[in-house]
C-alpha cells in the first residue's frame, strides 16, 4: 500500500502558483499576437505583424548585440571566477575560505541597482578609474568608459561573478581528489594535472555557470540601461522602452517571447556542444 499523507496539502498551493506563472506566460504569448492600438492600452485582433517587424535591422541588431554581450560577459566571468572558485574549494585556511566566500557571495545579494551604481562611480569621467589613470599619467584626458559596451560588460561580469563562483565551486568540490593524486603519483606536474584531470572534471560546473551567467546577462536590465545610457541597446532595454514609453505592450511581448526562445536555444546548444565533456566527467 502506498501511503502519501498530506499529498494534496503539499502540492495544491504549489499547483496554484504554477498556474499563476503559466497564466502570466500565456498572457505574454497571447499579447505578442495582438494588434497594437496607438494611444490605448487595449489591444486589437490577432496578427503576426509584431514578429515580422522584428526582422527590421534595428531590432535584429539589438538581438545580435545582446547575444554577443552575453557571450563576452559569460566568457569573461568564467575566466575570472574559476581561480576564485578553485581557491575557495582548495584553500586549507578557513579564514581565507570565509573571506573569499563572503567577498564573492555578498554582491549576489546586493541587487542590480546598487552594483550598477557603484560601477557608474568607478567608470565615470570623473570616476575612480579615470582619476587614477590621469594621476598616474597613463592618459591625458579621461577615457570614455560610461555609455560603452566595454563598461557594460565590466559591470555585468561583476554582476554574474558570484553565481559563477558558486556553481564552479559546487562542481569543483565534488571532484574526487584521488584522481589528481593518481596522476601526480604517475609523474604529472601540477599544470598537467590541472589541464588533464581537474579542468575536464569540473566541466559540469563550467557549463552550469556559463549558461546561468548567459541567462542572467540576457535578463539584466538596470546595468545596460544605466551604464549603457541608451547607447548600448539590448533586448531588455528595448522591451522596457516599448512598454513604458510608447505603451506598445504587444510588441514588447513579442520581443520577450523571441528573447526567451533565443536564450533557451543558446543554452540548449551549449549543453549539447559540451555533452561529450560532461560524459567524460561523469564517467569517472
Amino acid at each position, binding site marked *: 500500500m502506498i501511503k*502519501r*499523507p*498530506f*499529498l494534496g*496539502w*503539499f*502540492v495544491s*498551493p*504549489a499547483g496554484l*502558483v*504554477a498556474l*499563476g*506563472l503559466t497564466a*502570466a*506566460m500565456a*498572457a*505574454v504569448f497571447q*499579447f505578442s499576437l495582438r494588434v497594437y492600438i496607438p494611444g490605448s492600452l487595449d489591444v486589437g485582433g490577432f496578427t503576426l505583424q509584431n514578429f515580422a517587424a522584428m526582422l527590421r535591422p534595428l531590432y535584429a541588431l539589438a538581438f545580435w548585440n545582446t547575444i554577443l554581450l552575453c557571450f563576452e560577459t559569460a566568457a569573461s566571468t568564467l575566466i*575570472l571566477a574559476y*581561480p*576564485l*572558485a578553485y581557491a575557495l*574549494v582548495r584553500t586549507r585556511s578557513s579564514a581565507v*575560505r*570565509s573571506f*573569499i*566566500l*563572503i567577498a*564573492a557571495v*555578498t554582491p549576489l*545579494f*546586493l*541587487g*542590480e541597482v*546598487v552594483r550598477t*551604481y*557603484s560601477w557608474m*562611480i568607478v567608470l565615470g569621467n*570623473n*570616476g575612480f578609474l579615470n*582619476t587614477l589613470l590621469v594621476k598616474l599619467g597613463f592618459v591625458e584626458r579621461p577615457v570614455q568608459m560610461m555609455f560603452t559596451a566595454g563598461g557594460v560588460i565590466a559591470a555585468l561580469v*561583476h554582476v554574474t561573478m558570484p553565481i559563477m563562483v*558558486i556553481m564552479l*565551486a*559546487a562542481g569543483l*568540490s565534488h571532484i574526487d581528489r584521488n584522481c589528481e593524486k593518481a596522476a601526480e603519483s604517475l609523474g604529472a*606536474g*601540477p599544470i598537467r594535472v590541472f589541464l588533464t584531470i581537474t579542468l575536464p572534471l569540473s566541466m559540469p560546473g563550467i557549463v552550469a555557470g556559463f549558461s*546561468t551567467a548567459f541567462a542572467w546577462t*540576457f*535578463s539584466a*536590465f*538596470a546595468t545596460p540601461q*544605466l551604464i549603457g545610457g541608451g547607447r548600448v541597446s539590448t533586448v*531588455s532595454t528595448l522591451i522596457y522602452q516599448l*512598454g513604458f514609453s510608447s505603451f506598445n505592450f504587444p510588441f514588447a*511581448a513579442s520581443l*520577450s517571447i523571441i*528573447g*526567451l526562445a533565443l536564450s533557451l536555444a543558446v543554452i540548449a546548444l551549449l549543453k549539447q556542444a559540451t555533452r561529450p565533456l560532461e560524459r567524460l566527467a561523469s564517467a569517472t
Partner: protein
Amino acid sequence: MKRSPANMALRWSGRILVAAILLFVLLPGIVVAITAFNDRAILAFPPQAWSLRWFWRAFSYSDFGRGFWNGLTVTLWASSIALVVGAAFAIAIHRYNFVLKSLLEGILLSPLIIPHYTIGLGVLILASQAGAGRGFPLVILTHVLLVLPFVMRSTFISLENLDGRLELAASSLGARPGRILLTVTIPLLLPGLLSGWLFAAILSFNEFTATLFVSSQATQTLPVAMYNYVREFADPTLAALSVIYIAVTALLLSLANAFLGLGKILNVDAH
C-alpha cells in the same frame, strides 16, 4: 606536493591572481564607501572634503523611506508564502510520486532562466486583463514566483541530509503522520527552512527588474526608488545608501555563515 622552486612560483602566482580578482570584486564597494563620505554634490573622485550629510539625506529622502517599508512588506509576505509553498512542495517531490510531478517542478523552477522582465511583463498584462490594479498583491505574487526556486532548492538539500530512520522510529512508536511532520520532520528541516527563507527574503528585497514592471508609485520598493533617484540626481546620496546596504547584507551573510554554514547552503563545501 613537492616544494620545488617551480611549484612555489606557481603557487604564488596563483595567490596573486586570486588577490587581483578579489580586488576586482571588492573595488566598486570600496569606491562607493569612499564616495559616500564625499562632501561635494558631484560624483568626483577622490573626495576633497568629508561629510556625513549624504547619509542624512538618504535617511530623510521620503521615497527611500517609503520604498524601504514597501519593500519590507513585500519581502516578508513573499518570502513567507514562498517558504510554506516551496517547502511543502519540495517535501512532496522528495517523497512521493504523483501526476504531473516533473511538469509542475519544471514550471516552478523556470523563473531561474526566464528573464525577470518577461515575468514582470506577464504578470502586468495578466493583471490589466483581469482588471486588477498595480497593488501590493501583484508585487507579492511576482516575488513569490521569483524566489520560490531558491526555497525549494534549500529545502531539498536539507531533505537529502535528513535521516529518514528518525521518522520511521516515530512512526513505529505510534505517532501519526501529522505528529511526525510537526515534531520530527519540520524541526529537523528547520536550519534549511530558515536559510531558504533568508535567501528568499534577501533576493526579494533586492529584486528590481520585475518589480519595476509591476509596481506603481505607491508600491515601489527600495531598489525601484533608488533606480528612479539615479536617473534624476547625481549626488552621493545613493552611495551612502549603498554603503548601508552593503554593510547590512555582509552582516546578515556573516551571521548566516557563522550559524548555518554558508558553504553548506550554497553546496560548495568539499566532500
